[in-house]
């Protein structure tokens, strides 16, 4: 092996990497926050919502969970303009991530809701709360607490999956790595650096989600 490693290009190309990181982080934040919100709404609809809404949400969830993310992304970016829905690369990437996490999040959160003891609903009802109030104030937080580790993992998966958006030329971290590789022909070094950055981002995101869990859910002592 007589390959000489060369990371000298970093001096010239770090702004490109930085911009890529910024976009990956932005996609993750927007996708994470709106995706979880959509997941909560869909989980409510599927577990407790009106009868007519349940099959609609079920169809959405199955459609997303049984097709590749890349196809969903292509459909939104290349397919929807045929219907007059034109979006920028970033808008399409954001939408695809929200829709994707919404579907997976729905199933995870629904499991948390359905594990709620019946007595919690009855206690809410007997205090005069409406079904929606009982869900929002009584059921939701313990339900999220139950499934928080699974939901956190899913958010990290969606963050890593965002690499696919480089395929519609959204200028995320993977796009930046591809770009640098094509300019410098330093494939190993470009993807090695991108790998390290993704690793750091994923670890940071997990820590962030753990911290969020600590503030969102009260510490409960084991009895």
């Amino acid at each position, binding site marked *: 092996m007589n390959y000489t490693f060369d990371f000298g290009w970093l001096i010239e190309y770090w702004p490109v990497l930085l911009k890529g990181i910024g976009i990956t982080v932005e996609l993750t934040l927007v996708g994470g926050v709106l995706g979880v919100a959509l997941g909560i709404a869909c989980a409510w609809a599927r577990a407790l919502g009106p009868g007519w809404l349940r099959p609609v949400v079920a169809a959405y969830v199955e459609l997303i969970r049984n097709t590749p993310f890349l196809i969903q992304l292509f459909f939104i970016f290349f397919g929807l303009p045929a219907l007059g829905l034109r979006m920028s690369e970033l808008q399409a990437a954001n939408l695809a991530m929200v829709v994707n996490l919404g579907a997976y999040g729905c199933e995870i959160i629904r499991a948390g809701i359905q594990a709620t003891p019946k*007595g919690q609903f009855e206690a809410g009802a007997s205090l005069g709360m409406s079904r929606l109030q009982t869900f929002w104030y009584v059921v939701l937080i313990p339900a999220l607490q139950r499934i928080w580790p699974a939901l956190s993992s899913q958010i990290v998966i969606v963050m890593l999956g965002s690499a696919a958006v480089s395929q519609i030329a959204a200028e995320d971290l993977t796009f930046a790595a591809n770009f640098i590789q094509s300019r410098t022909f330093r494939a190993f070094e470009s993807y090695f650096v991108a790998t390290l950055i993704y690793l750091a981002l994923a670890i940071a995101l997990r820590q962030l989600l753990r911290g969020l869990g600590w503030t969102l859910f009260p510490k409960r002592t084991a009895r």
Partner: protein
Amino acid sequence: MSLIEITEVKKRFGDNEVLKGINIDVAPGEVIAIIGKSGSGKSTLLRCINGLETIDEGSISVAGAQLLPDELHLKALRLKVGMIFQQFNLFPHLTAGRNVMLSQMVVKKTPKAEAEEIAKRMLERVGLAHKFDAYPDQLSGGQQQRVAIARALAMQPIALLCDEITSALDPELVSEVLAVVKELASEGMTLIMVTHEMRFARDVCSRVVFMHQGRVHEIGPPEEVFADPKTPELKQFLGVTH
């Protein structure tokens, strides 16, 4: 003038008729104990009174609020009757104080400061003012049940329904909960309780209802029901519990 009117109530679960025409009128301030074997329909009857179960025939009204299956009527009814459960059903993610504040703020739109004030008073009433900031799983079963009572009281109900509220408690914790209930009774609260605490029923209740196979089999003041049971079923029931 009755406070709670239960008239010809029938309730079926599929083919199984669990309530076969119940008639009970409860006057303000009465303390009613409902006793009977499991499966006799006593818990179902209690749950019908605040609409946790629907009824198939008959009518139930509490201080003029009719039991009707839509959310508006149910809310009006539930504001008049509070309920305490066997399993406490405290909200695990909220402190004791927050448990007592929540429904005041959400249902009655009471401002936070006032809700907190009321919550403190109610917790004091059940002897737990010092546990305002404790989470349910930091409390004993007896304490949790007393928080549940405070939570129901904070909504200022006219009557309280108690569904076997001491059955899930360790024996040494039963008395602290019953003491609170006794206190409420002496203050004139209308209470309907499904209970297995025969001594308590005898000492505190104004009337005892013995249910058997979905019907009110015997009803009367405790001295009558306990000392002079008329039907063989009640004799047998009291015989096994004594």
